[in-house]
């Protein structure tokens, strides 16, 4: 009797939260799934909705432009997250050592993270400027480049340049998480390992990395999800150009739904992206669990 009452009370107390969650994320999600099965237009979507079944999905998966956008996004996510993880961990290792000015450097680590993405994108646009950009000036002055060149106007370099800007902004997140994790690793482990004759490399692989792997995988999941839905930095830096070489899938969804007003197919594109992200997250979760069992 008592436990029944308790259950009822618990549900009653949870009800406001459930209503909010269903209203804020459940309803839009279901509506998006519904739209993805129709030919809805952005303006007056209900009037022009015609049920088209899975046509939108079929068209998306057979569209070479959409697949190209998925490829750009995958490239962006793999390279940027990979670089952020490596640089983040290296910086964390450095900042974990005792040296003069460490506190100042640690504080400075926050700066890129604190910048709004749009400001960061504008700043890097200036750095890459083909006529007076700092990158050109630097490379020409140290003799690595003969003359000023275009970075964001060349399809061969544009996406990499956007990735660099993104890595600069986001590696501190990885570094901070890694740094926090490093501080929990007991010092005596290293002392014991050194006594047993383990070198720097061995100590890193056998003590440091396993100890910070859990927190690092959280950073990995967060950054991958973020990278897969990248939009703002591309919108500000290149708007998908040159020759659509930086058009990521979120940008493609935006164009489809808001510039061409096809909410129906836009929704189906967006859901495909969600599905890919969900698969990635599931994969990570599996790996993390497995790690925990060992």
């Amino acid at each position: 009797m008592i436990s029944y009452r308790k259950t009822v009370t618990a549900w009653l107390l949870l009800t406001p939260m459930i209503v909010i969650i269903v209203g804020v994320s459940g309803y839009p999600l279901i509506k998006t799934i519904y739209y993805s099965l129709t030919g809805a237009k952005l303006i007056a979507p209900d009037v022009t909705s015609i049920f088209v079944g899975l046509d939108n999905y079929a068209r998306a998966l057979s569209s070479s432009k959409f697949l190209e956008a998925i490829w750009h996004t995958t490239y962006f996510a793999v390279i940027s997250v990979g670089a952020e993880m490596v640089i983040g961990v290296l910086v964390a290792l450095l900042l974990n050592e005792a040296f003069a000015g460490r506190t100042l450097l640690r504080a400075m680590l926050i700066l890129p993270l604190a910048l709004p993405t749009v400001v960061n994108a504008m700043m890097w646009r200036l750095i890459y400027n083909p006529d007076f950009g700092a990158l050109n000036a630097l490379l020409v002055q140290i003799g690595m480049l003969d003359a000023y060149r275009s970075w964001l106007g060349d399809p061969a370099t544009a996406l990499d340049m956007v990735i660099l800007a993104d890595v600069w902004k986001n590696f501190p997140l990885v570094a901070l998480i890694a740094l926090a994790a490093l501080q929990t690793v007991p010092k005596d482990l290293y002392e014991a390992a050194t006594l047993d004759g383990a070198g720097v490399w061995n100590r890193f692989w056998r003590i440091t990395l396993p100890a910070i792997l859990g927190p690092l995988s959280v950073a990995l999941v967060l950054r991958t999800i973020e990278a897969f839905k990248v939009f703002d930095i591309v919108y500000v830096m290149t708007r998908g150009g040159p020759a659509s070489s930086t058009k990521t899938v979120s940008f493609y969804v935006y164009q489809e739904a808001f510039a061409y007003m096809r909410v129906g197919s836009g929704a189906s594109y967006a859901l495909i992206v969600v599905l890919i992200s969900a698969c990635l997250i599931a994969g990570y979760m599996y790996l993390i669990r497995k790690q925990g069992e060992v």
Partner: protein
Amino acid sequence: MNIKNLMTGAAIGVLAASGAAHADVTLNALFMAQAAYSEDDIRNMTAEFEAANPGIKVNAELVPYEALHDKIVLSQSANGYDVVLYDVIWPAEFAQYQLLEDVSARIDDKTRAGILDGAWTTVKYDGAFYGMPWIADTKFLFYNKDMLKAAGFDNPPATWEELRAQAAAIKEKGIVEHPLVWSWSQSEAAICDYTTILSGMGGEFLDADGKPAFNTGGGLKALEYMVGTLDDGLTNPNSREYLEEDVRRVFSSGQAAFALNWGYMYNLANDPAESQVAGKVGIAPAPGAEGVSKASAVNGSMGLGIPTKSANKEEAWKYIEFLTSQKVQDKFAKLSLPVWEASYSNPDVIKGQEPFVEAAKTSLAVMAPRPTMASYQEASSVLQEALQNAMLGSVTPADALNNAAEAISDMQ
């Protein structure tokens, strides 16, 4: 943009929201911060309007051209704006979705007769008027007089081939590395440059049946011309990532002998505070082609309309009437020429910018339209990508345009 304006805007917003004692109406107006009237011009015009119309406040928002279309469309469901600035290429789409109010009944005969025909095409679709023309503009050829003189030329080129020859001579003499600069990034600006050259070379976007025709004749020649000037090193290669303001910056810093840009650049490039080549800037209609045309131009006009969802249509119309009136347009004629025919003989308008007005008389009369189609935005982005592919050398101009033509006819 300055803090004061922002603060004023915010203050007005707060006053309006608190439903102050007055029956004040606050109009939300959307403009662009790129070419034509400057932000200061728009703020000054608005201040004059507010002074003349107590009880109406205007909250003017300026966005880059690239964001304008999507802002107008998205605000429709949010009931955002009372007055919007829109481009000549959008009325077909806006009419289809009933985004803008049909104001045909509000326009009197005197106004109808007084405004240039070319300007009216900006707001007219299927016989109805969806606002008032406000900016009558096209692309002009700007040139650096000193550089032409140094290369031995007394006059700006009359044909595109002559432009190429003059640019080649200027490059040869080492006067400037890349004599030509354009706005050829993946954007509508590139379409405007392309349309200008296409029109001069006798090309057509769509044939009589409405099927793509830009992949043949003048349309193909235009792109081959553009790619040719890049291959010869005459065009600044960074043009492929430039918008209008980049063109102005490069030309104004003396790094180019010729530039294709909107009329607003004339007075800015001749302003010593904004330009290192002030006083040396010439303006001419964009050239034509031997035996085909005398001049080239694209219709780059823009109009002011009232979104159908606006709750303050009467006040919005008052504001539009004020902004598009000949009196206001004649007063602010330095960066954007008036849409009124009579303005072009008004000494106050002409004074100090005779060459600009003279060039405009020729250019505004030959403005070529971009295609009128409801799916223009998508067609344009297909074409933008095709232009970029050809200019970056990954495909030939013919292949690029053929692919685009095929994609656009599938769309129709």
